[in-house]
């Protein structure tokens, strides 16, 4: 069964995070390693309201780019191993 768009994105982000263990993301007062952030992407039911909003906003933006930006879409698919 083919992966959904959001599943492709999450898989690709998790792989990117694995490759870059020392990189960090700053969002307001919060700091995450890529790995920490990627783990929140498919786990956002258990998060507090504010973090959930952050993650949802990130995923929505990523989905928008996936649909509108061909290079981004192709690269994410390739990284996730679906192309």
């Amino acid at each position: 069964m083919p992966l959904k768009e959001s599943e492709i994105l999450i898989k690709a982000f998790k792989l990117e995070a694995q490759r870059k263990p020392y990189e960090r993301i700053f969002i307001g007062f919060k700091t995450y390693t890529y790995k920490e952030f990627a783990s929140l992407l498919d786990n956002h039911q258990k998060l507090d309201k504010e973090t959930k909003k952050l993650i949802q906003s990130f995923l929505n933006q990523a989905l928008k780019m996936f649909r509108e930006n061909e290079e981004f879409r192709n690269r994410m698919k390739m990284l996730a191993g679906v192309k």
Partner: protein
Amino acid sequence: MAVAVLVAPSFDDASRYSYEWSREIRQKLEEKGFNVIDISGREVSRSEVEEALKQNPNALFVFYNHGSRDCLWGSRTEKVVNLNNVKLLSNREVYTLACLSAEKLGVQAYKNNCLAYWGYTREFAFSTEAIEDFKKFANHGLIVKLEGKSWDECLKLTKELAEKLANKLVGEGKYFSAVLMKEDAEALVCYNAEMPETKCPFRKVAVKLLGKKGWHLRDYLKKEYFEYVSEATYVISLIIYVAARIQLPLNFSNIDIAFILMTISFLVARAYNEYLEWVLNKWKK
């Protein structure tokens, strides 16, 4: 000599980066002949910022640090600007690199006649792997402003830059960073180049009819002279009514109905004005 008040506190990892980025801003301001009052590189108190703003009433205000919907932070615990002292932003241009502050504080600043408020309606996010790209994006608006562009052009150019940087990041395989860059660009606003969104249906109509002036219509209506005019009009109408009534027979007539309606509408308008004032005060508290 033009004056700029630059506040870039430093007290955690994120603010150490924003402080670093603000050094380029300081240099550019000085190159353009600004006298820069720089309160940066440490925790900053509210009184320091208030004093600097009070002493330099029309100075450009640049703020690089954390923000929330209704404030700018000088440390983890101290708000240097919030809704209680937002009037200090009146009649000056404000350039912020602070999460969320454009959502409420910026709108309130715009209501208080801040000339321009540059800020973000959501969290400003950045990554360590593309630190130079985020710095470039964060500083770009003010740098092009100092080159003489209008705020409208600055906003447009900065959003275009973000688009280019996001594409470059995709090409470099920095996908987290590309998405964050696009999010930052979407959250970026400048209240001057554009008007804050409003939920008030009256203001929406006023904006459609009168443009930017419509946004501030309530301020115009609240000016004392307008209140005097409305009250004076009512008093004159009262005199005319009494004079006319003396001439008429005692029966209830159209002139009475007209006068009653006018009295009711005058009272409703006054009550609405008082109600708005009450809501505003409650909100400020």
